[in-house]
């Protein structure tokens, strides 16, 4: 990858990380409500998985979706406005944090039901195959999803019909407060998926370079018509499950261990090492990120609620 591309990766990761920081600030101020799940720490998984996608590919994922939306190229202003519940949010205030969606970037939703989006991903892929298109579907879910019944149904059918899905399991070791060791009889989530007859890989999800390499192979496999592929990305969320979770179930030592493996400094170090980039270049990116986020917050603050007399809009197609 060249320097420009890597600086873009760095920018996107900083944008996602800083967006979550801003969201936390606004949430505490009461501007954002409900359940709010932050992606901080997992940025390499999203950008690594998406890096080799084409614009026409579909991305679908869980409720921890701000980063998916942003990494896919979504507008931070529309995302922030959606979190504020305003009419100029990407879903007109109807969805909120867990349900960002934008056809324009082929981000087909954040979903609150764990594993609920997995058969939907398979259905998108069924349509792709039916229409003889060359798209793939990237489906993000966590370790907890791998124990849900419909997850197994979806993986089975996607393999049976050889559908172009790349399953990306973000194994951050916890489903709210329950560790993988306490919930999955097989601690290797890739091995569980292997039973459904597809290539699987386990990767360090804190390492963008490894992540994008594994994803590139998986995406190529799915796009070639050979069927689905599975990636287990071992990663870590630095914050609690949601804004309501102080994450007391994780030791300070454990969190520090993973902090030392922060994906963003890793990318920065690689750029500095390979391209002799100066500190001021990274500071410029940081400034750009803050400016974009200032605009996003200002946009959200200036917006307004959807009038209540439009409550029944967008329920049925007339």
């Amino acid at each position: 990858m060249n320097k420009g591309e890597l600086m873009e990766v760095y920018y996107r990761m900083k944008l996602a990380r800083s967006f979550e920081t801003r969201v936390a600030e606004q949430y505490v101020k009461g501007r954002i409500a409900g359940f709010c799940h932050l992606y901080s720490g997992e940025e390499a998984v999203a950008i690594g998985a998406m890096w080799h996608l084409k614009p026409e590919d579909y991305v679908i994922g869980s409720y921890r979706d701000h980063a998916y939306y942003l990494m896919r190229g979504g507008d931070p202003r529309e995302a922030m406005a959606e979190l504020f519940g305003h009419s100029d949010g990407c879903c007109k205030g109807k969805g909120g944090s867990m349900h960002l969606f934008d056809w324009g970037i082929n981000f087909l939703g954040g979903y609150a039901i764990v594993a609920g989006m997995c058969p939907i991903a398979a259905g998108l892929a069924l349509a792709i195959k039916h229409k003889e298109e060359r798209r793939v579907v990237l489906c993000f879910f966590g370790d907890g999803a791998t124990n849900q019944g419909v997850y197994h149904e979806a993986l089975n059918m996607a393999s049976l019909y050889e559908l172009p899905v790349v399953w990306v399991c973000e194994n951050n070791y916890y489903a709210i407060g329950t560790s993988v060791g306490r919930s999955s009889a097989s601690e290797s989530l890739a091995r569980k998926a292997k039973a459904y007859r597809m290539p699987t890989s386990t990767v360090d999800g804190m390492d963008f370079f490894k992540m994008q390499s594994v994803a590139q192979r998986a995406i190529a496999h799915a796009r070639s018509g050979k069927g689905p592929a599975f990636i287990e990305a071992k990663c870590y969320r630095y914050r609690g499950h949601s804004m309501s979770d102080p994450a007391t179930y994780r030791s300070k030592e454990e969190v520090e261990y993973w902090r030392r493996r922060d994906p963003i400094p890793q990318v920065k170090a690689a750029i500095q090492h390979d391209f002799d980039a100066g500190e001021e270049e990274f500071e410029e990116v940081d400034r750009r990120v803050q400016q974009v986020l200032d605009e996003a917050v200002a946009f959200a603050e200036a917006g307004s609620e959807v009038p209540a007399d439009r409550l029944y809009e967008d329920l049925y197609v007339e």
Partner: protein
Amino acid sequence: MAQISYRDALNQALFEEMRRDETVLVFGEDVALYEGSFKVTRGLLKEFGEKRVVDTPISEAAIVGMAIGAAMAGLRPVPELMTVNFAYLALDQICNHLAVMRYMFGGQVKLPVTIRMPGGGGHQLASQHSHSLEVLFVHTPGLKVVYPSTPASAKALLKASIRDDNPVIFLEHEGLYNTVGEVPDSLEPGVIGQAEVARPGRDVSLVTYGAMRYVCLQAADRLAAEGVEAEVVDLLTLRPWDKECVTDSVAKTHRAVVVAESPPVCGIGAEVAANIYEIVFDELDAPVARVSGADVPMPYARNLEQACIPHAEDVVRAVRQVLPP
């Protein structure tokens, strides 16, 4: 005009819609090779091939989930759940996804999914195979619910449901598959949301749907022999149901009995009765009576099962309750 069975009418609707629109797909358990457990999908695989008529594993939740994804990406899926009882396995996908996604995403998705589900009791299939679950779906904003009772309404409404860009729960009654009725040769799609007066009358309105249409017609014949002319209103669509047709009927007859096969608590009877009271209270000469299935899981033994399902004499008894003494 021809005399066609309810089953064949549904089959014809599928053929016609699949010929008309190549984005229509049928999938479900045993729908292709086996031609459907109730043979509604007979012949489809042979004409349309494996890409459009797809056998699935036993995975109701994923069957519905895949229909949702396929619909988002531009297809028009018509999944089959082998019986309505198995819909429980797909309730999350139906009520937490299919029903809400258009609204939740601010109108960005269109989900033209028609889920066919045969249901109803009467064949001694016991409590896990005999449900009438329509009310669960009727209660859910974002869905439409259709329940035809005649071959003509089955064909017309299945065509309409498939063409509708909204999610439709399409219920069929297992006991009606062999019933035969007149179906016009070239049939326009029906109107979802329009009820049908199956029998006009002036003394009492019998509001009903599904297999109970026939029970009400039988009751109406018996009542006619006593000089009581019952009007039978067949809802055909349960969500949105035709309030105007029902309240016009009650405004004429001043008495109403709602007849449904499913158990009474929070059933269609409760919904229709509440609306009759709200909209045409001044027209009523008696409280609205409800005839429903027994409030128990469906038992296996023949005599017990028959005691659970409304019969003509139950309807006649209810009518006598609302008539002047």
